[in-house]
Every structure is written in C-alpha cells, then in structure tokens.
C-alpha cells in the first residue's frame, strides 16, 4: 500500500521514499508521546514535597542557653540543624587551615556570618549518605579535627563543618539564616 503512495511524490514533499503515511505516523506518535508525558507529569510531581511540607519554612533559635564549646540540634524542614558555639581556639583552628589542605576548599569566613565567628550553623546531615554526625556535646567523639564525626562510615568534619576525611565528598551544607539580634537567629 505504502508503495502506491510514493508515485512521483504525488502526496507532498519530503525526502526520497517519505510518504504521507510516514508523516502521519510521525505526527500521531509524537502526539501520543506528548499526551502521555502530560498525563505522567502530574503523577510524578505529586511525589515531590507538598505545599504543607514546604510551608514549614522557618524557625527561630535563641542562642543564650548554648554554652561555649557545645552545640544544639534544632529541626528545620525535617532536617537537623547544628548551632554550635565555638571556642576561641576552635575559631582559630578553623581560620588557620590552608585551603589546599581541604577536600572542598572553602574559607571559614565564607561559612559564618561576619561579626559572629563564634557561631557556626550547618545542616547536620553527613554529605556522604545522610547520617547525623556526632560532636555537638563536648563528650561526643569529634574526630581528629575537633568538629563532627559521622558514625556511619567514618567521615570527619572540622570546627567549620568542612569535610577533612572521607568518604563524605562535601562540606556540611549551610542553611539560609540571619541574625535577628546578637542572641537570636532565624533559619529559613
């Protein structure tokens, strides 16, 4: 049947051998693919975080009860956030490291807010496979770099939350936060 249609391009242009039927097949399949995609997308997107999950957007943290040398964990969007009060020695250690010695080079000043170097605020989720590192309590294991230690596969972070020993590939992530006053931050 298709052969009869190719007679001297009687049915429109196209390359040699292309027929009106080929064109119709192409348009019909493309239409079907787009249609299926349009139906599939709402189903796929319904599995993304819903509006009520997104709405739990910000928390305020009072810093006064956090003793120097220790930290606390607060929950933000279902994730643990470490807020740690660093000692002068810990700050100095974090600032003095040569960037070339880091796995993901980043200066300490880029990880704290200017004028608040004693406060380090990080998302407390190991960048390897998502465990919660230990180290907020001074009695916790903190690894060789004095920050945090991940019990799952042994990653170590320094007092700036930068990864110093794998398998974690990246520094602890930073949440969006701002100082509302000297003793209060707002995360999110």
């Amino acid at each position, binding site marked *: 049947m298709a052969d009869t249609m190719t007679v001297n391009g009687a049915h429109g242009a196209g390359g040699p051998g292309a027929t009106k039927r080929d064109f119709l097949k192409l348009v019909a399949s493309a239409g079907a693919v787009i249609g299926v995609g349009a139906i599939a997308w709402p189903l796929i997107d319904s599995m993304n*975080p819903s509006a009520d999950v997104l709405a739990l957007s910000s928390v305020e943290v009072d810093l006064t009860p956090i003793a120097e040398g220790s930290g606390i964990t607060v*929950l933000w969007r*279902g994730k643990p956030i470490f807020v740690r009060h660093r000692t002068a020695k810990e700050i100095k250690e974090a600032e003095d490291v040569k960037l070339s010695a880091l796995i993901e080079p980043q200066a300490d000043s880029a990880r704290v807010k200017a004028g608040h170097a004693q406060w380090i605020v990080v998302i407390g989720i190991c960048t390897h496979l998502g465990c919660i590192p230990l180290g907020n309590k001074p009695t916790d294991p903190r690894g060789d770099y004095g920050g945090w230690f991940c019990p799952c596969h042994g990653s170590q972070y320094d007092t700036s939350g930068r990864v110093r020993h794998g398998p974690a590939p990246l520094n602890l992530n930073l949440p969006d936060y701002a100082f509302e006053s000297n003793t209060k931050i707002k995360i999110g």
Partner: protein
Amino acid sequence: MVGLHKSEFANPVINWIDTRLPIFTMMQKEYGVFPTPKNFNYFWNFGALAMVNLVIMIVTGIVLAMNYKPDAALAFDSVQRIMRDVNFGWMIRYVHANGASMFFIVTYIHLFRGLYYGSYKMPRELLWMIGVVILLLMMATAFMGYVLPWGQMSYWGATVITNLFSAIPVVGNSIVTWLWGGFAVGDATLNRFFSLHYLLPFVLVGVVFLHVAALHITGSNNPLGIEVKGPQDTLPFHPYYTVKDSVGICVFLLVFAVLVFFVPNFFSSPDNFIPANPLATPAEIVPEWYFLPFYAILRSVPNKLGGVMMMFGSIAVLFVLPWLDTSKVRSCKFRPVYRQFLFLLVIAVITLGTVGAHRPEGIWVYLGRVATLYYFLHFLVILPVLGKLERTLPLPESISRKVLPGGGGPLPGGAAAKPMEKM
C-alpha cells in the same frame, strides 16, 4: 464449532470450561506431562521453593496490612499492637519477617545453581536476565518493607539507601527530595513505601510468570548441562518432580518453622525495637543480611559516586553474564578450572557479607577491597579468558547414557554418532 478448543477431559464440567478456556489443557501440558530432564538433583527444587515463598509473603503481607498503619506517628505502635494484641499477629509478622530472609536464602541458592550448572547460557539468556530482574524487584520490595515498622534501623536504613541516589551528578539531590516527598525521610516517604511495598510483589508474580514461560520454551537445564536429546532423557513433570519438589518443600517449611518459632529475631537488629528518631543516628547502621555483600562493595570504594556505581555494577554484571562467559560447556562438572574460580567467588561474596557487618576499620577495609576486586575480576576478566583457555572434560553422549546403566537403549540415529556435544 469454529474456534472452540477440543478438550480431552472426561469430566463434563471441566470439559465444558476447557472447551471455552483451555486452562486445564495448559496446566496439563506445562505441569502434568511437561518433559523434564530425568537427572535433576535437589538444586532444582529452589525455583519451586521461591514460588512457594512468594505466595507465603503475599498471603501474610495482606493480612498484616489489615492492621498496619502507614503513618509516621502510628506505624511503630501499630506494629507493636500486631505483636501483642492481634490474634496470632505475632506469628503472622514473624512469618513475614523471616519469610524475607528465607526468600533470599532460597533465591541465592537458586542463583548459585544457575552459575554452577551454566543455566544462563544459550538458549537460556533471557530466562536468566528475567531472573536478575526478579532479584532486583525482590531487593526493592524487601528494602521498602523493612522501612515500614518505623524503628531506628528502618529509618536510618531508608536514609542511607535513598541517599545513594544523591551521588548522581547534577540531578541527584532533586531525585532524593522527590523520593522522600520532603526534605528528609518522613511521613510522605513511609506512605509511598507502603504503597509500593504492596504493589511490587504483584509485579513479581507477573515477572515470575514470564520467567516460567521462558523456561517452558527452552526447557530446563540439568546437572550435566547437555541438552535433552529425546524422550528417553526426560520424565513427565507429574508425578516425578511434583513429588521431588514436595520433599524439598517439607524441608524448607521445617527450617522456616524453626526460625519462626524458636529464633524469630535471629536476623533482626536490636535497634529496630527503638522507634525512629530523625535526630539521632544509631551508632552503627547495618542493613539486612541479604544486602551486606553489596553494602560492603559500596563501602570498599573511598569515593561516593564510585562506590555507588560499583554497587549497582555488581548486579549489572549478572545481566551480561551470558556474554561474559565464553565457554561452550555449561556444567561445572566438566569445567574443573572454572569450578575452582567459582568457589573463590563464593568465598569472596561470603567475605563481603562479613565485611558489610563490621565497621569499615583496619583489616575489614582491606578484606573488603580484595573481595570486591575478585568479584569484578571473576566476571570481567576470568570468565571471558578462561572460556577460551580451559580444557574441559569430555561431555557424555546423552543424559540417559550417563544416568542409566547400559545407557537406556540405543539412541536415535544421528545423535549417537556425535562423541561429544558442543552447542
């Protein structure tokens, strides 16, 4: 009449149905008279055992779901209620939980049988690949099932495993958020895992059907690994193998019962008796035993993306195994050298399983790396090369020649002339 099936069944009711929908004829053909090699050993029980196991999982699972609540606030307590208050709830749950372990034991032995007797080779490549799909589906189902009781190990196991996808460059984190339906494993995750854990076993039923359909096209392999030459090499499936399978099922149920009634928590982690706490990771996260070898491969690579790729790669090599093994001879009985390497592989996998259960420190790191290395060497280097070099032993002329004293009578013409079967 046109189109009606001519049924041979005498019973008028069966005949009436069979004429219109020949399921009885089909069952008779596929499970009654189905010609099956006469030399099966007990390794050939494990496919049937896996099927029985799948049915057990589906039945107990459906009953459990009648009392389970897939809500992060209620899940843990609803499971405790099943254990304490629901009539026979403890038994149903222990059967389901230990059933998962039994399922993997049975399937791993079934898989080993395939490796040992070369069941993955021409013409059973597709049958084998469908088997690997079954294995992947089982793993996904078991993983999601383990999350449902919402204990500490459920929660953190889910966190670590879903985070594997964050290793994918660029889109990794969006995929993980999508899997979770939130910014951490939580209620949305639990809910969808329950939905999928209910669905996947039925997908498994469909894929197992394809597996068996493919098997009934090629016919079964057998311990000699040579093809069936004619009726003198086979027995009807019923009663010979229905009975042999029944013996296996009795032993299987015995082991199963010992697990359920005497050591029901043999395979479970104490941390899963603690409700999930998103703020504290247990000191040590250990997956269920059947994932340990893969977990050990993941941890043996000190690079996140590399580790994840090696882990998935360890299953991907099984997919292409029919083309990696270049030897024409199937059964290990006639491949003395390959057989040694296969035992090394088994040792490597057991080593990996042990490594996976220990902290990645000291000797365990090195053992894990050596075993991982051997695993991949075996499939990617040894198998392709060995197939070309190995001197295999002479194959018997036919199954009946080897099995029956006197060779079971003369072979039909042509076949007898060939001294050695090469496919």
